């Protein structure tokens, strides 16, 4: 029995194809990204080793830091909006009628491609014919915004479809977690005379704090990597007003052919993601210790 289940040939046969794929397409490229960052390279011609020049430039690059700030803003914004989703989930999970249907309606935008969402919201934000401004006009607003064309609000305009896209996903997770809170605990609290609010804050929320941490992590790291929607809607513009790290990397590499510098930005993105993952887990952990 043991012998059959530890047949080395079979183990290799079963694991090596998948292992080869993730090593070749995920791990090796990550290392190469750091290595290409040491090169002056246009993607076609010869690479020239230039040491840490790209990384030094990166640290002094204002556009990179502005993009990083935009990515962090998105992360902060996404994390804050988790509280709204949590509140909605608390109501949804309190045995109300139609919660199943509502939950599924909320999830629909999450199923659409970022391209479809981006194109749809570009139409919604169309200054003259879009739904957003037509609605504002109906409410008597006169100086309607130009949304994506206004550097001052373009980034925040993009946050709206991001929220729209992900709301249902987080509500789904919280709802599932809340449904997992054992009925006995709720019943016991009811008998002890806990109010709905007390029940939420003292019992349900502490019990799902583990899931909450996971979602904070997802929101933070997901925001740092955010790309598709911004690339399609504004391409980082106008004038860099909605540039994020991934879109900046893409522009440098695939539009301006600075593959060396683009790699350095890509490597910076990786480092930032790892640091933020570590930081988020550290921060959420210390909160736990206080409890």
């Amino acid at each position: 029995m043991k012998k059959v289940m530890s047949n080395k040939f079979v183990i290799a046969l079963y694991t090596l194809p998948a292992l080869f794929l993730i090593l070749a397409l995920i791990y090796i490229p990550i290392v190469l990204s750091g290595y290409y960052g040491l090169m002056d390279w246009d993607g076609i011609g010869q690479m020239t080793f230039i040491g840490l020049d790209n990384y030094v430039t990166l640290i002094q690059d204002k556009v990179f830091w502005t993009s990083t700030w935009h990515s962090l803003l998105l992360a902060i914004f996404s994390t804050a909006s988790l509280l709204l989703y949590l509140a909605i989930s608390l109501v949804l999970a309190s045995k109300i009628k139609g919660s199943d249907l509502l939950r599924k309606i909320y999830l629909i935008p999450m199923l659409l491609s970022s391209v479809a969402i981006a194109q749809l919201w570009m139409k919604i934000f169309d200054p003259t014919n879009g739904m957003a401004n037509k609605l504002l006009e109906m409410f008597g607003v006169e100086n309607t915004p130009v949304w994506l064309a206004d550097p001052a609000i373009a980034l925040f305009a993009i946050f709206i479809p991001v929220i729209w896209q992900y709301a249902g996903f987080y509500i789904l997770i919280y709802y599932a977690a809340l449904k997992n809170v054992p009925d006995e605990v709720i019943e016991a609290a009811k008998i002890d005379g806990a109010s709905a609010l007390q029940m939420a804050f003292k019992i349900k929320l502490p019990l799902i704090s583990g899931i909450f941490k996971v979602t904070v992590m997802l929101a933070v790291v997901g925001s740092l990597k955010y790309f598709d929607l911004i690339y399609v809607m504004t391409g980082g513009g106008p004038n860099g007003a909605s540039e994020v790290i991934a879109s900046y990397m893409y522009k440098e590499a695939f539009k301006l052919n600075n593959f060396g510098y683009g790699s350095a930005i890509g490597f910076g993105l990786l480092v930032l993601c790892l640091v933020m993952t570590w930081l988020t887990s550290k921060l959420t952990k210390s909160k736990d210790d206080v409890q």
Partner: protein
Amino acid sequence: MSKVSSPQAASLDLSVPDKSKKSLLNKIGFGFLYLILGVFAIIQIYPLVWLVFFSLKTNQEVFGMSPFSLPQDPQWANYTKAWTSGNIGLYFFNSVWITILSVALTLILASFVTFAVTRMSWKFSGLVLGLFLVAYMIPLHSTLIPLFNMYNSMNLIDSPVSIVLSYTAFNLPLTIMILLGFYQAFPREIEEAAVMDGCSIHRIFFQITLPMTVPVLSTTGIINMIYNWNEFVFVNTFISSDKWKTLTVGINNFVGQYLTDWGAIGATLVISIVPILLAFLFLSDKIVEGMAAGSVKG
């Protein structure tokens, strides 16, 4: 609540009006909450309704009338225009076969790994599993330039092979995570009995384990399907000729060219999202389950 159930005699009289007052307040409170939930549902759904509306309108209607107005004379011609003047049919076909092939590859490779890690005993199983799980944290954008260079040197740029391989590799971590939970919870007795009976390991895998894991395979399969169907950045980076473009990149280019024809743009977008919405209509429970499972493990 606790006051109502207090044993004092005086409170007995009070309890009745107190209760009805409370239930009225409760009703108002509940009504208010329902209102919020309902408004939220409208926010989530109305942009799509609006999309379907303007896909059936003429430009004059879109520009001149309220965003809540129904299409007066549904312009189905917008759909024929979208389907025939772009390569939408071709993109659609590419999306279908690339998605199916990648999902099939991902599921079989992930099942192999999960089986080897959970059912077989070997020294490095923990390490190998760790490699797959950590890969989930790596942002794919950081791999784009090296991948582009690698595919380029292998003549795989502008080839669907690069897309299928990338989809498979990047979906393996999440798929293995979801399968892992199922495999760990599943009793091993059947497989052990099969070993006792002298069944070969390949037969155990293909004839016992795979059929037993069909429920979780369908869940992860549909999640993978949605991800691949909607994927944009790999195709946008690695594919340049129309021949191999998928729907996301195809519609993005097409819509970019027809900036002013709202009806055709709307129709194109609707065509691209209908398959996903249909899948959701019939398989919503599976999709909900898969999304929850994937995130919680992550």
